[in-house]
């Protein structure tokens, strides 16, 4: 029982990452009708926003420490970040420590910029092209983006720790009456889950309660009619793309402490997030969120050793297996609309 609850909580957390990425992907698909294979790359760029801010904050000048030596036996050069000089060592260290949450502020404009540039520069010209072309050109873009990141940041993962205040875990099980140490939950994952919930809620609220959102929703339902009403839907779609990029990017920023960012994390997530979106039903926002959590939780259950003892290797294939079963029983995924992406 406690083991199941534990995996359920884990799944919620995994699922929130899937849901966030799938949400952005669906926003783009639903509004613009574009299948964006570069979405994983946006997630990756988001994570690298955290890395970049960390690098900026730790920009340093060298101070030679005569008392110690480096690996060649020369006097050790110690890097002293400029923020130490500006804010003093204690505040400076705190700022660096909090670089991941700070990166949210940094990432929002960057990601919106990247998203708008992508839409204006490339995606816009593909609205009327076949889906296959869209998939292919964005796939090419994804390769280019990740290679650029690799060129500047290398191939190895880059540690991007959460603030010290959030390391460690709390004993959730003990709070609800289980034995101590049965259900522990890391603080940062709780943060991530809440963060995801807030973002998902914000996106839904935005679409539900603002005029802008209403127009976009109408556009998702029937693009031509909205266009006929004389509403400049294109401009709104550009903004939507920026927003979707920001959602993906923020998901990436906050994910950085969980998985040290590397250049191919976007591709790692791409396939998975597409499976999530399709299982949810192309173009359905609630479907994307639902499928994200569902697959996250099922994946967690499948990784239990009790399960693996019965079905070895289930953890390797669970996501795909679920996708196949759902697609065969529900032709358009959990909440997909008819006629979307079936041609």
């Amino acid at each position, binding site marked *: 029982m406690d083991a199941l609850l534990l995996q359920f909580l884990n799944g919620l957390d995994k699922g929130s990452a899937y849901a966030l990425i799938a949400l952005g992907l669906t926003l783009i698909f639903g509004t613009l009708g574009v299948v964006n294979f570069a979405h994983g790359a946006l997630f990756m760029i988001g994570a690298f926003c955290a890395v970049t801010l960390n690098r900026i904050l730790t920009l340093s000048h060298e101070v030679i420490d005569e008392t110690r030596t480096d690996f060649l036996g020369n006097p050790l050069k110690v890097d002293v970040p400029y923020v130490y000089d500006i804010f003093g060592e204690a505040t400076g260290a705190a700022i660096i420590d909090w670089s991941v949450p700070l990166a949210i502020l940094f990432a929002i404009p960057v990601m919106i910029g990247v998203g708008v540039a992508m839409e204006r520069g490339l995606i816009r010209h593909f609205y009327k092209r076949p889906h296959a072309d869209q998939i*292919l050109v964005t796939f090419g873009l994804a390769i280019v983006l990740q290679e650029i990141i690799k060129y500047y940041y290398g191939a190895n993962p880059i540690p991007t720790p959460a603030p010290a205040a959030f390391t460690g875990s709390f004993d959730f099980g003990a709070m609800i009456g289980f034995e101590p140490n049965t259900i522990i939950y890391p603080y940062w994952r709780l943060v991530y889950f809440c963060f995801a919930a807030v973002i998902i809620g914000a996106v839904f609220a935005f679409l539900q309660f603002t005029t802008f959102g209403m127009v976009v929703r109408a556009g998702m339902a029937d693009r031509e009619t909205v266009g006929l009403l004389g509403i400049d839907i294109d401009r709104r779609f550009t903004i939507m793309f920026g927003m979707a990029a920001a959602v993906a990017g923020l998901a990436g920023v906050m994910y950085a402490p969980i998985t040290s960012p590397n250049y191919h994390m976007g591709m790692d997530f791409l396939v998975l997030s597409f499976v999530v979106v399709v299982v949810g039903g192309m173009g359905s926002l609630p479907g994307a969120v639902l499928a994200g959590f569902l697959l996250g939780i099922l994946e967690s259950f499948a990784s239990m050793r009790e399960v693996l003892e019965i079905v070895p290797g289930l953890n390797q294939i669970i996501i795909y297996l679920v996708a196949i079963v759902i697609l065969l029983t529900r032709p358009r995924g959990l909440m997909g609309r008819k006629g979307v992406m079936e041609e």
Partner: protein
Amino acid sequence: MFGLNAKDTRLLIIVAILTMLAPFILNPFPEGSAMAQFNAGYPDLMQRFVIFGIFAIGFNILFGLTGYLSFGHAAFLGVGSYAAIWMMKLLTMNVIPAIVMGVIVAGLFALVVGYISLRRSGIYFSILTLAFAQMSFALAYSVLTPITGGETGLQPKVLDPRILDGPLAEGATPKANLFGLTMSSSYEMQVGGWLFTFNVGYYIAAIVMLVAFYLAIRLFRSPFGMMLRAVKSNQQRMNYTGLNAKPYTLAAFVISGMYAGLAGGLLVAMDTQVGPERMFWTASGEVVLMTILGGAGTLIGPVLGAGAIKYMENILSKINSDILHTWFAFLPDGLEDLVVTLIYPFIGKGWHLTLGIIFMLVVIFLPGGLVEGGQRIAAWFRGRKAKGSDKDASGTTTEPAE
């Protein structure tokens, strides 16, 4: 000739000549010259050109004709390879049972996957095929290790049973052969500074490719091929014309899977080793890239695309900064460094970047792939020769372009 019309016969003959003379054509630069780096006329790469050509031709039968975008085609290549290597371990190092078994097993696997996946269309179909391929990869890498060799894959070992072969000579290693003719054996010919290699394996693969190509042309021009294009064009009309689209697409899927199996079997015949990465989704993506890059739905496009990508993978990736410096050594020092710095990100380990950029450019500007590029150039030349004399050259053809 061969039951083909004049245009197709011409194409087949051109392709045949090109493949037979590939050892010359692909080695245009003399040995030891600075440009020799760009020579591609060595056995392994030539084999890969034709084998991946087969793979792409097969993929194009499905994608180019029916429009169904399979994102898991590498699984059939992988399954074919595993079947082939097991033939080599159990039966004989002769490549024929290996290749035949590769085709059969891949075809059966495609039948199962296709039967299930083709219940859906569009992106749902793509995701289903992707899911099957990813499952195959994940299982082959891990729990199926006893059958697949896992991460390290399978190679023929000295101690394998090989019931049809006689015992190996002391100290000999098992070598893939065709009735005693070893795949890796080559004849070399030196003409002046040039060296040309004629490799047995390459010619066997090339002949198989020509047969596969010929069959693909036949298929394209057959009633079946027309039906597949009808599936792509309008399934609704198809249904209301008394035709069941499903067996047509399934047949195309299985044929295409058998082509992949053939390619997989040949890969093993040329290079007796299989690893699970062959089935990873990026490998499936690669054949999509090849087909689109060359021109989906055209006959020769996929072969060109396969060649272009394999060339980049094998030639571009081997250029390192030292070689660049040698090339530009004639420039003044500062300029040399600048030029090398500018080019360096795109070659060697940056070859993926070049691939991505070229691919994007093709999709943006040449939706019909390299073939369309070729046609445009040809049209431009024709246009200069006889302005406007053949206005109806495009748009009214009854058959897909080659």
